[in-house]
């Protein structure tokens, strides 16, 4: 398919934004600037960025614990994301959600879930609203190979298929549920094979190739908007870093060989995308480097913003519990 230059460059910018955001998070987390869990998306950038480039602001996404990539891919603000990781009032969730629960309702990011598979029915629900009202938006649920074994996903795929809901089930198969290989836990060769049980297309995509992800998702979005129902897309990818920051210090033994990690690092999604842009004359090396540098600067500004934002006060503890507040017990 023909993809315009702006989209191709936006994809590059957002991938660099995620990469540089995550590198900064690793730096400041290890320096002790904030504590708490954080799960780097490095290596998987093409999956979320390619997929979200096929969406509009009025479309919805839900995601999981590895949650920094999805909002940035959907056009979220890195300053509010970073401030949330720092637990500050200017964070996306005013410091109440943290790394695993970023959300931006102004652009359809309905929230990331630390319980895996749990946000998939929620995405189906947004699509159900479109079905009932006759709206044209679509909904996309990000989940991993691990969550592909959750009943919530299977119930969701069945429900979306029988009601022909405009949902894209987007599996980021990074091949390991923390330390457990998907080859040991998934009964089919590919997660996308599971689509056949629910009478929907199942598409296996090279998750290191943002353009391939964009093309596959665009087709699924068109199908969803036309009222033809859901699609399961599997982006086969790899997590370059540990499951979560600091885990490497406590996990016993290797679960991924050095050779395997090195092989996948050779397939860096940024290298692949930049090589395509340069070889096709869409951007020069210098233009790609400039985009990288701009995102480094933006992440720096975001980090300063986070550092300078205050922590919530004790009085904020009971805020945001209710839409129609009730007395404390």
């Amino acid at each position: 398919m023909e993809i315009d230059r702006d989209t191709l460059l936006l994809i590059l910018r957002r991938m660099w934004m995620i990469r540089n955001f995550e590198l900064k998070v690793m730096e400041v987390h290890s320096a002790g600037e904030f504590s708490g869990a954080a799960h780097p998306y490095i290596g998987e950038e093409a999956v979320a960025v390619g997929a979200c480039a096929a969406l509009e602001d009025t479309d919805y996404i839900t995601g999981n614990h590895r949650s920094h990539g999805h909002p940035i891919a959907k056009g979220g603000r890195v300053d509010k994301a970073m401030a949330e990781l720092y637990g500050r009032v200017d964070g996306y969730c005013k410091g109440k959600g943290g790394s695993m629960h970023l959300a931006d309702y102004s652009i359809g990011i309905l929230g990331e879930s630390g319980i895996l598979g749990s946000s998939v029915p929620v995405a189906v629900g947004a699509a159900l609203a479109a079905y009932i009202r006759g709206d044209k938006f679509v909904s996309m649920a990000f989940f991993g190979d691990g969550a592909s074994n959750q009943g919530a996903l299977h119930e969701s795929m069945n429900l979306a298929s029988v009601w022909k809901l405009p949902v894209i089930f987007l599996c980021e198969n990074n091949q390991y549920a923390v330390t457990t290989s998907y080859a040991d836990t998934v009964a089919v060769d590919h997660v996308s094979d599971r689509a056949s049980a629910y009478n929907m297309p199942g598409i296996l995509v090279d998750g290191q190739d943002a353009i391939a992800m964009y093309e596959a998702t665009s087709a699924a979005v068109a199908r969803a908007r036309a009222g033809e129902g859901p699609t399961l897309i599997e982006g086969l990818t790899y997590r370059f870093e540990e499951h979560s920051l600091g885990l490497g210090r406590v996990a016993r033994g290797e679960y991924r060989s050095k050779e395997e990690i090195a092989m996948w690092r050779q397939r860096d999604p940024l290298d692949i995308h930049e090589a395509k842009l340069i070889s096709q004359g869409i951007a020069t090396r210098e233009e790609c480097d400039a985009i990288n540098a701009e995102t480094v600067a933006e992440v720096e500004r975001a980090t300063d913003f986070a550092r300078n934002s205050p922590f919530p006060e004790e009085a904020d503890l009971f805020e945001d519990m209710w839409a129609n507040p009730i007395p404390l017990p």
Partner: protein
Amino acid sequence: MAQTVFLEAINQAIQEEMRRDESVFILGEDIRRAIYGATADLLSEFGEKRVLDTPLSENGFFGAAIGSSLVGMRPIVETLTSFMWVAMDQLISQAAKMRYMFGGQATLPVVFRASMFYGAGSAAHHSDRSYPMFMNMPGLKIVVPSNPADMKGLLKTAIRDDDPTIVFEDGTLFGMRGEVPDNADLPGEELLVPFGVAKVVREGTDCTIVAIGGSVNHAISAANQLAAEGVSVEIIDPRTLVPLDKKSILESVEKTGRLVIADPAHKVCSAASEIASIVAEEGFWSLQAPIQKVASEQVHIPYTPSLEKHVYPDAPKIMAAVKRTLES
């Protein structure tokens, strides 16, 4: 005033709210054919998109209801308490927590209507009275109506409320007749019962009975018999457990000096336990006798009637508890 059956009151509330607001829709298992009666005639009036029969996938369709509520719909989920276990992840991880976790960005006007089919030989898998477990989890509003008028008025309020709400519908009351005001006779021409306002079912001076759901009728029966013996009982129906109108309970105990709590839930960490602890902490100096809990025995619900009849609060147990408070 019309005499209305409890299930008809549920049906009226849903029908009125679906007429009033196009974003209200209902989903659940076998609701189009209204096998429990509460959803009769909704399909013919509102059509297939707003009256959805679901697969047996509670975790899936509870979540779908939650997701739809985030983007402007007002779903009503019909289910049984005992099926809620299957959907606990959606109820707790998503419905209860989303708004707070996302810093107030999420608004979830979703209602879960959960039938409690206890007392009729349904055995352990269909007889749960589980509201206390949800009281323990911040983020869910909890309603337990005890008569047709409150059922209608509280359900309509729940549908309009912007927070996730579970309405526990007591199956022992499904056939109960009671007076439900005609809309034409009401201010604003509709019946809305506010959350967090207890009802003084009966005024009295010797002992307060706080009774929940189906226990209210047993408390009334006990109070009638006690009145014949010269004992004056005040009955308070909290109507909503979250929010809980503790002021009305404390004021009543201040007046009577004695408290019995009748609660169909299991007695350990029950609603009765919470109310007892509130009165012990905040109303201790009003008490002239130890608080008495009359809740379900801490066993599973047996199938056979000869055993099941011993499990729940009933009028004789409540009367005995009131008399114990009067011995002190």
